[in-house]
């Protein structure tokens, strides 16, 4: 399957909404918790069991992004978006069958395994294409798409809640809710499948490059460069630091101000979590766009350096001022989102656009690692501090010191990032062959 080439006059501003239609859909994964309590009561599951579909989906996201990246590069964004649509929607439909027949394994298989493949392929599907359409502003372009992944949960969380209220929280109500989710997301994502195009390389299309620019490195070669592994460490450390707060945001703010004159109520803690989601989303588009102006290396210096400073401020003065605590946490979460959104443009700067989607897919294994590491550090330490009789802010002091250390490691790894050596570059004739493959435009 050859990638869909843009006809003459095709606007590049049609590509970000195509990407958003996919990312806003698959971002639903972070709203899985809405289904947990109804599933637990309807099917008699424990909290650990009801988390299984989400956990498997995240594992499959990492695996399919890492191993499917080369296929995505070869077959193009429309193929990838179609696979994402089919898998993500089928996942819900299989889950609907599972809920209707009260066969929980079908929900795990559907949402977790099949849907998870949709998440991974969908996540990387527009990245390479966006960078090719916006060579002048790759950070902004990928920031828009990856912001969508954060925005997906904002939409799905209230929407799914309302649906469960309407259809009921028993197994048949959950089945109908899953069915509606599957069908709606299929329609919503189809916009991306229909609109996405790769730019023509024989002539510029509204700012797109006429040829591949700068050094180009294949996905296989990228893995053999120190730059890839430095970036892997940078992303892993930045994400770990963000998840450290995100994972325990509500209990953390409650514990921090429990022994003060201004304790935080449960509903106020929920407001804090919402505020962090907003910061996470804003950071994705805001910081990623800023990276187009100040450079990728500099923006990661900010994420990691200022991030460490924010953690230090929380650790030292956080429990004395609620506004300071909230502000520092929001800045850290904005850097967390920014780190995700900026990394495709960083990869493009280092490895070129040739197989940037596949390289990005492989780099996302850093996300999977951080997803385990961040919650593990914060939860394990908080539990042990509690056993030692500590309370309030001191439950998290050690975690914050560890987070500062991780951010410093990430900062140092970022300093080691240098341009890729010429021996890893793809020979020029390969570029020409690639150009030739793309010269057949699709009818509008």
């Amino acid at each position, binding site marked *: 399957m050859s990638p869909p080439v843009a006809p003459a*006059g095709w606007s590049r501003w049609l590509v970000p909404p195509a990407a958003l239609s996919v990312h806003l859909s698959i971002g639903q994964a972070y709203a899985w918790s809405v289904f947990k309590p109804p599933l637990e009561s309807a099917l008699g599951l424990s909290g650990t069991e009801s988390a299984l579909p989400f956990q498997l989906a995240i594992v499959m996201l990492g695996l399919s992004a890492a191993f499917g990246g080369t296929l995505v590069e070869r077959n193009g964004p429309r193929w990838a978006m179609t696979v994402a649509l089919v898998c993500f929607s089928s996942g819900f439909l299989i889950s609907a069958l599972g809920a209707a027949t009260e066969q929980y394994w079908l929900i795990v298989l559907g949402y977790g395994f099949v849907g998870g493949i949709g998440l991974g392929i969908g996540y990387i599907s527009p990245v390479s294409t966006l960078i090719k359409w916006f060579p002048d502003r790759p950070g902004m372009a990928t920031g828009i798409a990856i912001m*969508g992944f954060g925005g997906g949960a904002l939409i799905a969380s209230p929407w799914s809640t309302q649906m469960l209220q309407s259809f009921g929280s028993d197994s048949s109500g959950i089945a109908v809710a899953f069915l509606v989710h599957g069908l709606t997301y299929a329609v919503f994502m189809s916009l991306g499948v229909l609109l996405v195009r790769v730019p023509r390389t024989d002539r510029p299309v509204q700012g797109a490059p006429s040829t591949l620019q700068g050094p180009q490195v294949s996905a296989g070669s990228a893995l053999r460069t120190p730059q890839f592994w430095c970036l892997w460490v940078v992303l892993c450390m930045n994400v770990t630091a963000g998840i450290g707060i995100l994972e325990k945001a509500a209990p953390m703010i409650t514990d921090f101000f429990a022994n003060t004159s201004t304790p935080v109520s449960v509903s106020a803690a929920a*407001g804090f979590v919402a505020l962090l989601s907003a910061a996470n989303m804003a950071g994705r588009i805001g910081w990623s766009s800023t990276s187009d102006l100040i450079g990728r290396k500099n923006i990661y210096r900010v994420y990691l350096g200022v991030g460490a400073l924010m953690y230090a401020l929380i650790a030292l003065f956080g429990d004395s001022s609620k506004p300071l605590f909230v502000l520092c946490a929001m800045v850290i979460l904005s850097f967390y989102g920014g780190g995700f959104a900026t990394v495709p443009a960083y990869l493009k700067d280092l490895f070129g656009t040739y197989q940037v989607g596949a390289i990005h897919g492989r780099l996302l294994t850093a996300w999977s690692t951080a997803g385990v590491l961040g919650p593990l550090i914060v939860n394990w330490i908080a539990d042990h501090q509690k056993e030692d009789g500590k309370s309030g802010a001191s439950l998290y002091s050690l975690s914050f010191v560890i987070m500062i250390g991780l951010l410093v490691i990430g900062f140092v790894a970022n300093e080691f990032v240098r341009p890729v050596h010429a021996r890893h570059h793809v020979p020029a004739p390969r570029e020409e062959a690639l150009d030739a493959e793309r010269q057949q435009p699709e009818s509008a």
Partner: protein
Amino acid sequence: MPNDSSQSPPDRRPLIAFAWLWVGAPLAYGLYELVQKATKLFTG
């Protein structure tokens, strides 16, 4: 008779507006719900 290369490409602006509305409307709904929740930090 004009050849193909002299024909002006179709106006994409309505399609661009539709596409952005398609993704913008649900995102606006999500943001509205988010603001509702976030204000509880200051009022709750």
